[in-house]
């Protein structure tokens, strides 16, 4: 059982790390602000979500597991809000390359 859980952890954390990488590469390489914003949200939502999923088997108790999920939900909510506000800023700045 612990072997299966370890596999889950490795796959999920690796996938999460991949999305973080993808988000960062997008942030550095994508041509304009709004597409960069699109790349960023992938790191935020999926990257952290997969990390949390991968760490769940290592949570010491049910309470710790619930807290882990709460962390993700808070980041999700904040990320969605801040992305919208950034989009507004980007529109005001004009889409600089």
């Amino acid at each position, binding site marked *: 059982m612990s072997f299966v859980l370890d596999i889950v952890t490795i796959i999920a954390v690796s996938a999460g790390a991949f999305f973080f990488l993808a988000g960062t590469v997008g942030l550095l390489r994508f041509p304009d602000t709004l597409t960069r914003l699109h790349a960023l949200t992938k790191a935020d939502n999926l990257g952290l979500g997969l990390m949390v999923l991968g760490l769940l088997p290592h949570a010491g108790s049910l309470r710790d597991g619930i807290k882990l999920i*709460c962390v993700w939900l808070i980041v999700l909510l*904040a990320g969605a*809000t801040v992305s919208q506000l950034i989009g507004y800023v980007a529109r005001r700045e004009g889409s600089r390359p």
Partner: protein
Amino acid sequence: MTFASMAFGSMTFALALEIVLAAVVLTGAVWAIAARETLPAVAGFVAYGLLLSLVWVHLGAPDVALTEAAIGSGLTGALLVGAAARLRLSEVPMAVEHPGVILRMPAAVLSVTVAAALAASVLLLPDPAPTLAPSAAENAAATSLGNPVTNVLMAFRAMDTLLEKIVLLLALIGVWSLAPDRFWGGRPGPRHYADPQGVLAFVARVLPPVGIIVGIYILWTSADHPGGAFQGGTILAAMWLLVMMAGLTDAPPVGERRLRLLLLAGPVVFLVIGLSGLAFGDAFLAYPMAYAKPLILAIEFAMILTIAVTLGLLVAGPPEREPGS
């Protein structure tokens, strides 16, 4: 040491990680100093604080990590951002004032010397290290609290914590006293406006309930696990400021009686319990053994409200609008 049980190979692995972490922390620090504009510098400082709380976790001090994450990075960051935004106008002529090599060279030499002296003292720290941990553990039974740091803050060194509370109040009085006479008693800061149907108003309605639960949880858990009134109070303050930023509520007039009472609640409860220690126990701030835990929790619950209000008002700044406007 967490990694002591591992093989030598993993030991160097862990060391490599520590060096990477230290390097990233210092990147944030360099950039907080070197950035040309103030806002990016503040962003660097916030990132530095965030990374520093990782360092604190790694140093086995999650209580401090919580404080650094909440106050050192988050609230200080918000304070600096607000100030930077207001001072943006004055930034342009400032660039001219940049000091020349004549000032910079000695400053660099001095800084390097101080840093080298500190580094040397790190390397020369006595071995075995002096520690008060055993005596903190021996006396833990006196309060029946499981968290040694809460024990130190609320029982062994309670006087420090009481005085620190008073320092916070004095700082707030200092900030308020900077208001021009005609604004005295008025509301701090400008009134914020935002689209009531907008995304900011939405998040300011959804996030604070979660934050209030987390803040109280951080206080509640501090009896036996890392946490405390400061950390919890900071979260509450941040949520209050968020609601203000979204324009859903306004900062209270500083002359309001209810507000004054809230500001005094924590220190007064602390003082009353401390003085009753003088009457019923052995000394000022001595808790009777049987009631130590409930008394400490009572102080902490009174304190969390006071701390939240004080920190929020410190960020909001001095009154800037005439009373009744």
